[in-house]
């Protein structure tokens, strides 16, 4: 059997309602593929993986895979994931969010999860738009772009999701694209392995709701754009700023060792036990 067929058999829910909900050419499927390849390489038991998502086209991702899957409310995936991880730290908890999901309605949870440093992996599919609701501008829609709620043009300024995560204190932050699919599964693998809060921002395409309206072409043209504008972090470090003006970096932006919440909390438990024993 071809490798990909094996993966499909092992990880997808065949009894589930395929075909999926996504448009042909949507980047979400590439992210799902990369995630499956990463997990397969890690060799984790399916029982030990909890895949949590918010609401959006991206939020539909978990339903197709045979893990413990949890499709939560819009923007709140990280809060549910926090509860899951704290209740059973042995589980590998991976969170899928959209750009609107993670940085608009869920922005507060996102920065606090990064600051808190639980051992969670957050994958944010950034397609620069609210895909599911039909193309309204999101916190990552570029200045000047068009959206159904910015038909004259967007006058707000975009977040850089990855840089936001770095500043908020995430232990590991990476950025990939759906064009660089092989790099993506390696970044995801590294993020899952990272002890601490890790973030992978995935530059993706929503040709249906964003590309079309902004005359960026279909899925193929949008992937081509990713290819043309992505620069590896290492290479960017050696490039003059002018050359980087219309580029974005891909690779690992930050990888640092920080105290992990659940490890810290073990010490809190010891302190609490000692205090209670002393009171008795």
């Amino acid at each position, binding site marked *: 059997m071809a490798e990909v067929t094996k993966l499909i058999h092992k990880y997808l829910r065949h009894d589930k309602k395929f075909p999926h909900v996504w448009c042909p050419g949507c980047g979400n499927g590439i992210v799902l593929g990369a995630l499956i390849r990463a997990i397969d390489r890690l060799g984790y038991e399916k*029982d030990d993986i909890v895949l949590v998502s918010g609401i959006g086209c991206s939020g539909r991702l978990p339903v197709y895979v045979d893990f413990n899957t949890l499709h939560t*409310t819009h923007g*709140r995936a990280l*809060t549910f994931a926090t509860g899951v*991880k704290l*209740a059973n730290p042995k589980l590998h908890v991976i969170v899928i969010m959209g750009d609107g999901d993670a940085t608009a309605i869920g922005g507060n949870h996102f920065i606090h999860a990064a600051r808190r440093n639980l051992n969670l992996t957050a994958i944010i599919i950034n397609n620069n738009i609210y895909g599911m609701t039909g193309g309204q501008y999101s916190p990552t829609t570029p200045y000047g772009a068009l959206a159904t709620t910015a038909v004259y043009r967007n006058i707000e300024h975009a977040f850089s999701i990855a840089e936001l995560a770095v500043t908020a204190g995430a232990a590991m932050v990476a950025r990939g694209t759906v064009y660089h699919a092989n790099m993506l599964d390696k970044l995801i693998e590294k993020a899952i392995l990272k002890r601490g809060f890790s973030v992978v921002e995935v530059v993706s395409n929503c040709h249906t709701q964003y590309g079309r309206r902004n005359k960026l072409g279909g899925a193929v043209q949008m992937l081509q754009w990713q290819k043309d504008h992505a620069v590896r972090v290492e290479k960017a470090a050696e490039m003059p700023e002018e050359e980087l003006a219309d580029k974005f970096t891909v690779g690992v932006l930050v990888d640092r060792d920080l105290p992990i919440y659940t490890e810290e909390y073990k010490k809190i438990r010891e302190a609490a036990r000692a205090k209670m024993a002393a009171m008795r």
Partner: protein
Amino acid sequence: MNEQATTGRQVLLQGNEAMVEGALAAGCTFFAGYPITPATEISEVMSVKLPAVGGTFIQMEDEIASMGAIIGASLAGAKSMTATSGPGFSLMQENLGFACVAEVPCVVVNVMRGGPSTGLPTNVSQGDVMQARWGTHGDHPIIVLAVSSTKDCFDITVKAFNLAEKYRTPVIILSDEVVGHTREKINLPHPGEIEVIDRIRPNMPPEWYVPYEDNSRGVPPMGIFGDGYRYHVTGLIHDVRGFPTQRPDEIVPFLNRIHRKISQHFFDILMVEEELAEDAEILVVAYGSVARSAKRAVREARQRGVKAGLLQLITLWPFPRQILEPYLRKVKAVLVPELNMGQVSREVKRINQGVTRVETINRIDGNLITPEEILVRLIKM
């Protein structure tokens, strides 16, 4: 209500503190919260005690996050709880609905303060009875219990966990500023003396597990993350496998089942206390801190020859209609004193349908209704 054990440890506790004791006795191992008057002590005491028993306390960034976290923890096998007051309770509503639809056991405490909005943060109120019932969007089943004393705070919190586990549902406890902050002596029963119920877990081979399949109880066994029963949890209306559906023949049975699992077990969920009610001519219907005043008023009224009685509601939702109805046919009048503009009295009137006279005392100035206020009215009636 649980009979209080007499062999336990005597302690002087605030209502809020007793809730923590109740939660721990019921097996709570996870608490997520955000500080708010007059519920903050619950978080504070939890942060001290939970880690000592191997549990986890976390202060989240807001109440939306707290509610999300307790649902996540419950799905991973913990008995979980949060505590808040009006403004925070409003923030919890969306995720509360998620817990109803995904059938996730958890306990939500609302120590009521004056509203609306920031309202009267340090004053007592009972303004959230209807929000507790209808706060989240869409038709949904819910269990809401009201506490009136420190002893209740212990006993009813144990009950709340038991009901949540038994029926796979969020259970809301409505306390109030007076109950939460009043110190009273209670007996804390020994662990073995308390009935503790745990959720029913699947025991069939995983490939046979149909996570939302109906059964005679209407409550499917609950797999927890990591135990081998992999399934999909969603706030979307789902089929018996847990997968989103838009088929009318799957939507309707699902919604009917989650309502039926509560209505079918009405008498197990229903808790009231009756004081001199049997032969009463005037029935006082009260709950929470006001029930304390009402109890005293009823006793004093009897001494003055007024045949008054008290029906104290502990279960507010589902509303104890079946208990109330026979009284309505028997008594000359009903009096509903409450710290709002008429939330439970509205339900009483709706059930009464003009059978008997229903009067109310409504206090909204941030103070408790006194026994005297009720007594004066009883004598007039």
